[in-house]
């Protein structure tokens, strides 16, 4: 008997639950700030990482590329930059909570 669809259904539910939990971890900023941050992500991060976040001089920021990377270290990279590479510190323009929200969006593929 093929239990594929049922198993897939359960997996999907588990994924949804997981993403809901993570969303609780970093709430979306109120508008218009959320839109401004998405604009920043696609245009200014996108200058190096690509408008569609598939990479360029900077590495790709797709959910696949970020899978398994600890969110904390990604948040730290956004805020502090990465010395020795062209990644600059974005701390002057973003709060820690906002960086967490962006990382969550990127990891879940919800940035588009």
């Amino acid at each position, binding site marked *: 008997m093929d239990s594929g669809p049922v198993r897939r259904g359960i997996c999907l539910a588990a994924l949804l639950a997981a993403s809901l939990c993570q969303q609780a971890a970093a709430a979306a900023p109120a508008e218009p700030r959320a839109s401004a941050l998405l604009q920043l992500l696609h245009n*200014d991060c996108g200058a190096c990482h690509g408008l*569609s976040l*598939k990479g*360029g*001089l900077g590495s790709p920021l797709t959910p696949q590329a970020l899978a398994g990377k600890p969110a904390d270290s990604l948040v730290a990279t956004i805020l502090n*930059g990465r010395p020795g590479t062209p990644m*600059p510190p974005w701390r002057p323009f973003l709060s820690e909570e906002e960086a967490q929200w962006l990382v969550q969006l990127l990891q879940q593929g919800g940035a588009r």
Partner: protein
Amino acid sequence: MAGSTLATGRRTLARLLAPLLCLALAACASTPLRGTGDLGVVIERASGSVQIVDNTHEQSLARVQGLGDLSHASVVFSRDARYAYVFGRDGAISKVDLLTARLVKRVEQASNSIGGAISSDGRVIAAQNYSPGGVKLFDADSLQLLSSISTAAFGGGESKVVGLADMPGNRFAFALYDSGEIWLLDASTPTAPKVQRFEHIGKQPYDGLASSDGRYFIAGLYGEDGLALFDSWHADAGVRRILGGYGRGRQALPVYKMPHLRGWSIAGDYAFLPAIGQHEVLVADNRSWKQAGSVPVLGQPVFVMAEPGGRRVWVNFAFPDNDKLQVIDVPSRQVIKTLQPGRAILHMEFTARGDAVWLSSRDDNKLVVIDTATLTTRSTLPALEPSGIFFTWRASRMGM
């Protein structure tokens, strides 16, 4: 019976065709012949389209869609300035006919790319790739692949290619971001190109330029203060460092957008180059390549472009100063004007003889045409998140 059916068929066909034919003739009669010398292409980055614009009448002629991911795109022109080759971020080359405003050919040649060049004889298109790295050569007419040049030789995977520029004699120069090299590619036999490598040119070259006489190739370095210079008249002398230590121990400021280098940096006796991590424009003597000074500006320069006459240099800036422009007077090396014509001014392009400069204002969805004599806005045109503007005078210039 059959004959009469045929005759009826012919009459019907004639009745149907006659108005079409009239329409077609009328269309021909109402569309005057035109040249391409005052045309240009504007990249609309978010929508994957380009606008074809007329820089004499300052108007948009057409929009061509379906060009893929143009979040970073560059354009070169066929030698007759009829076709634009658009290199997209998604690794595609799109060949656009400026006269019919149609996409005539599109090849997906890599998965991530930002630019390319056309050979001095106009027959070969070279694409520079980030992923999977390397350079590919294509026939300019058919976009058939002619050869592929791997940059994997340094042993760390394929290096990203930056700063690809055409040089005289069907050669191309480019820099390798990951391995810190400059390669000179002789494509005079494009199916069997030859490579000359220059290693250890400096850390993290991010872009390059060929001087408009095709003699020099300069790679900008992100990883250190200075640039790498190759003099093709003295190729055996190799690559040397210029403008080393321009930061002179000062704290490097964050760079929120990489500068762009092209042959328009050279004005009169000097080259004007963006400093990395300093809010200044570097000035170098364009023969000795010694630093002749620097001009403080309000942010991290992105494009540092000389007017065609070389008298003034225009500078735009990285985030968060990308709503401003500064104009530098070359003889006095002073900023003479700061302009604020729109939000996110990403790209500038002068008309061939410099009477006007066109600006892309991404966040205001407009193009702004500034009169260079009065430094005032002459017109604005709507555009969808515009970025690069490329006029057809580039077709006859090296290093563009």
